[in-house]
């Protein structure tokens, strides 16, 4: 079974973002960029399936400018077999990304697609579900456990009230939650080997998809600032403040 994994290049999760002074977006110049953490979990899951003999090949795809090849190489160093970069300078919406991915699915015919549940820049949490709808594949979103058995995918999902398990016919889409696994670190020899693994580049413009977004960003602003308050030196003082000043208890 071939597994397709998607990775997005995003600002590193440890970096505090700055909103640009002209309110057109956030300042990404000279900031550390990484694989979206949920995508890293997706790569790890796919590699584990290969190590267990369930998957035969792990193909990783990223859509973005040339720089996202760095994240594809990271995925290759973690154990993916080959990469596809769909080249575009545009900031695509989840729908356009899903449409491009649907074309990749059509061409590659994977038995399973593993994606992050959410990109930590847009915080959209949409692309996997959209890809599911476009390809008529079932989905196991927010997965904390994945078992492939008898040609079905059994997915345990983290939901608001606890956990839910669903069974999906295959091919299927799984989107990862934090508890699915703990990604490994790439070892130096694997980082070297990854440089020689195949990576093809395709132009997004060649897919015959309308890449203009129907959602225009009018403004990006700082959230309302929250100032630190005061320190109290005892439980007694804290309870008094909550009662008399804040009046919340």
């Amino acid at each position, binding site marked *: 079974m071939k597994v397709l994994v998607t990775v997005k290049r995003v600002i590193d*999760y440890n970096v*505090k*973002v700055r*909103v640009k002074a002209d309110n057109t977006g*956030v300042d990404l110049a000279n900031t550390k960029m990484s694989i979206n953490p949920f995508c890293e979990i997706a790569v790890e899951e796919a590699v584990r399936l290969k190590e267990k003999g369930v998957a035969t090949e792990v193909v990783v795809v990223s859509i973005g400018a040339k720089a996202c090849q760095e994240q594809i190489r990271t995925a290759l160093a973690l154990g993916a077999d080959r990469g596809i970069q769909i080249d575009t300078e545009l900031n695509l919406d*989840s*729908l356009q990304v*899903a449409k491009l991915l649907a074309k990749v699915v059509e061409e590659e015919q994977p038995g399973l697609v593993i994606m992050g*549940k*959410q990109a*930590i*820049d847009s*915080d959209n949490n*949409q*692309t*996997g*579900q*959209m*890809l*599911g*709808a476009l390809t*008529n594949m*079932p*989905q196991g979103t*927010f997965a*904390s456990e994945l078992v492939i058995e008898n040609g079905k995918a*059994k997915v345990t999902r*983290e*939901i*608001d*009230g*606890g956990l*839910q*398990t*669903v069974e*999906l*016919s295959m091919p299927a889409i799984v989107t990862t939650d*934090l*508890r699915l696994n703990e990604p490994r670190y790439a070892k130096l020899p694997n980082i070297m080997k990854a440089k020689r693994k195949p990576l093809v580049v395709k132009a997004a413009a060649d897919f015959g998809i309308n890449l203009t977004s*129907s*959602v*225009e*960003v*009018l403004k*990006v*602003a700082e*959230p309302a600032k929250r100032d*630190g*308050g*005061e*320190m*109290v030196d*005892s*439980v007694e003082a*804290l*309870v008094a403040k*909550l009662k008399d000043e*804040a009046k*919340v*208890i």
Partner: protein
Amino acid sequence: MTILLIAEHDNSAVKADTLKAVNAATAIGGDIHVLVAGANCSAAADEAAKISGVAKVLVADNEAYEHQLAENMGLLVSDLGKDYSHIVSPATTTGKNFMPRVAALLDVAQISDIIAVHSEDSFDRPIYAGNAIATVKSSDAIKVLTVRVAAFSEAGTDGSAEVVAVDAVHDAGISSFVSAELTKSERPELGAARVIISGGRGMQNGENFKLLEGIADKLGAAIGASRAAVDAGFVPNDMQVGQTGKIVAPELYIAVGISGAIQHLAGMKDSKVIVAINKDPEAPIFQIADYGLVADLFDVLPELEAAL
């Protein structure tokens, strides 16, 4: 202009999330129709009919919708939604699961997690873990929106909408429900609680969360947790507050043994009053706390319980 709002419910009752989403829809304007899709869900539909501002309730009562599987819900809602100007749902794990399928089937974008409505086509939503707020404008004929419920108050319940059955049955036949393991608790849900007390890695183990329970009982509070506490297995996943967990905005949020990583702050920084208890005076949580107490939580929690 008519809005189709998909109710969050458990077949017998509608959740508070639905009432909050109705308030967001009211801010958009136009008639509001609420869809209750489930199995044996007439009690939930009757409740939905009482929500103030709702003009009509559609009930799709069929086994195919019992667990609101995304594949079936996607087909149902995209079919029913064709003639509406907006399709809205709360950004719960249910809404997040099926709404993007609806949008893709209708070939329109989805705007996730709106926190403010400017007009019928322009909304605010947080990005980058709430470190920036984007104002976006949609030119789609049908706007598909999920609502960050913590940003809206609940609609009233003095309505009396007509209830209409929907006969369409959409069963994609590609997924099935196996089981659910739902956390049972006598306490209020995180999303609905007036007070939340959360524990982090500093709690050291699950047993120590008992120290929070006594306080929660006295304050009628819900108990939350940081990712570190969930990952370590102290408490179940549904207690995680943060960018990728639950987003809450209670009157009072007490963070105990939580450092205040941006991903945690993203889920609670809109709380009205924040209290931080941490033994490290440099912990970032103090930068946003209204009241900070530098102390060992194992000394302080029993004292706090006694003082309440």
